[in-house]
């Protein structure tokens, strides 16, 4: 008795849906193709990093992380991110304040120039700093005479990383500040707050999630940058080798052990990417929930 009833129910439902939905076969085919694409291009590469890292066993894994050269690379990567991310926060906040709260001629040109590093190849970015500070560069002789080193040293790595991460924080903050307008700040000022108080207690809290979002993306790029850093670093083991460069050096070692070591250092970077992704997803989810709540209140 139940079987025919259900059939009839389905029969009555189907024609009304046929117009705006694909046939179940087409739908399953599309989902299968999309999942296959994700499997080959997302899940397998990720799983492979960890599998290859463990290919020579746990102890090999531990040894390659605690190797002095790897530790030096980890320290340098943390140092570079520790310098570039705060500088980008300062720049991002200043740029967002100037662009979102004031009107001035040339604003759209300014925004385009801030985004420029995104469209420059990392290798070309590195080359620019070599042209400026390399031995044959504009300031090369002067730097050499004063015994200062930028290229093939840490300052060059910091500069190259600053260039490639330049837009990250600013481009998250500018739209966030623009969306808020200036009414709250005007009110705070009318009530007697000074400029800094207004910034700390009114503006900054209202864009904090956008700021954190930008910082997370900026940090991931700063720690993972390869092309620009590779050009300016000089690959001096233990001194100017960041984690991604260490991965390359180990990979080029050629033996099974050094390959596993390369994948071990790579797995640290892949874990960083996963953490970045989780935090990013959490922030987006939070933002969507806040937006919904605001809609409910205003509706």
């Amino acid at each position, binding site marked *: 008795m139940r079987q025919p009833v259900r059939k009839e129910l389905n029969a009555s439902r189907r024609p009304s849906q046929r117009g*705006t939905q694909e046939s179940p076969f087409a739908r399953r085919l599309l989902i299968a193709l999309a999942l296959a694409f994700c499997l080959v291009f997302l899940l397998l590469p990720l799983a*492979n990093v960890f599998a290859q890292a463990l290919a020579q066993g746990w102890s090999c894994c531990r040894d390659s992380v605690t190797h002095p050269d790897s530790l030096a690379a980890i320290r340098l990567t943390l140092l570079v991110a520790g310098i570039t991310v705060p500088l980008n926060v300062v720049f991002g906040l200043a740029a967002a304040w*100037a662009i979102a709260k004031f009107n001035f001629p040339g604003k759209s040109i300014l925004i385009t120039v801030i985004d420029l590093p995104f*469209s420059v190849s990392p*290798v070309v970015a590195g080359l620019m*700093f070599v042209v400026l500070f390399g031995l044959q560069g504009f300031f090369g002789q002067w730097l050499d005479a004063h015994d200062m080193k930028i290229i093939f040293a840490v300052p060059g790595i910091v500069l190259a990383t600053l260039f490639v991460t330049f837009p990250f924080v600013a481009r998250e903050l500018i739209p966030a500040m623009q969306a808020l307008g200036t009414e709250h700040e005007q009110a705070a000022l009318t009530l007697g707050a000074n400029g800094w108080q207004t910034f700390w207690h009114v503006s900054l809290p209202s864009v904090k999630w956008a700021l954190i979002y930008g910082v997370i993306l900026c940090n*991931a790029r700063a720690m993972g940058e390869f092309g620009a850093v590779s050009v300016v670093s000089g690959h001096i083991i233990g001194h100017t080798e960041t984690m991604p460069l260490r991965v390359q050096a180990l990979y080029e070692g050629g033996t099974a052990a050094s390959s596993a070591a390369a994948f071990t250092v790579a797995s640290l970077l892949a874990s960083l990417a996963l953490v970045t992704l989780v935090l990013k997803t959490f922030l987006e989810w939070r933002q969507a929930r806040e937006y919904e709540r605001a809609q409910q209140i205003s509706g």
Partner: protein
Amino acid sequence: MRKRFNALPGFGLTMGITLFFLSGIVLFPLVGLVIRTLELSWTDLWHLATTDRALAAYRLTFGASFAAAVANAVFGTMLAWVLVRYDFPGRRVIDAMVDFPFALPTAVAGLTLANLFAANGWLGRFLVPLGFKGAYTPLGVGIALTFVGMPFVVRTLQPVLENLEREVEEAAATLGAGRLRTFVGVIAPSLLPAILTGFALAFARAIGEYGSIVFISGNLPYKTEIAPYLIVMRLEAYDYTGAIALAVVLLMFSFVLLAAINLLEQWAAAFQN
């Protein structure tokens, strides 16, 4: 229009900081490169930028980037459609994972893809006997560039798909159009500007890509050598002018693409309204 009164302080300070950083980090290096380029004679520049090895490198860079962007346009559209329209287990995880290529350092991407498609890798052991050599070949360059550009089409298309009015599709269905005809005739045209924008973004990103390619291509001159790699080779030989000549070609191309992307985005925005 009355000039709006703005009592907010700090314009001078923040604008100063902005311009200071912008000049020091972006404009100053860019101007340095331009000056060095202008010091070269046009004939020298032309010769350095069009050696046989450079031409082979451009062909691979632009060809593989174009192929990867096409692959991303096709699969990205499909993925965005599936993520927005259908519900299936794991949808939210996949949705979050789409940004993985942005978060993963390119060196790691190249390393793991090269290993995956090598003769003894997880995929290579099945694909290489079939003649599909995905490591140390031009095909490998295409695979790495597809990975790197993957999020662009999906992320530009998703909001457009979400805001698409279902009424139009219903109208098409009422008028007797089949699902495929509705898609081709009604849905696809309104998605086109977003797909093209995503395509151009993925293409632009692929042109400059270096980190992932170093690992997977094998970097054989005339065969699997990309233009950014040739810049690095010339720099390592202290051939600054040769490196600059190639860099200028890449830069000009990126700026043309940037202008095209801006136009496309304006068109897409006009299309949405």
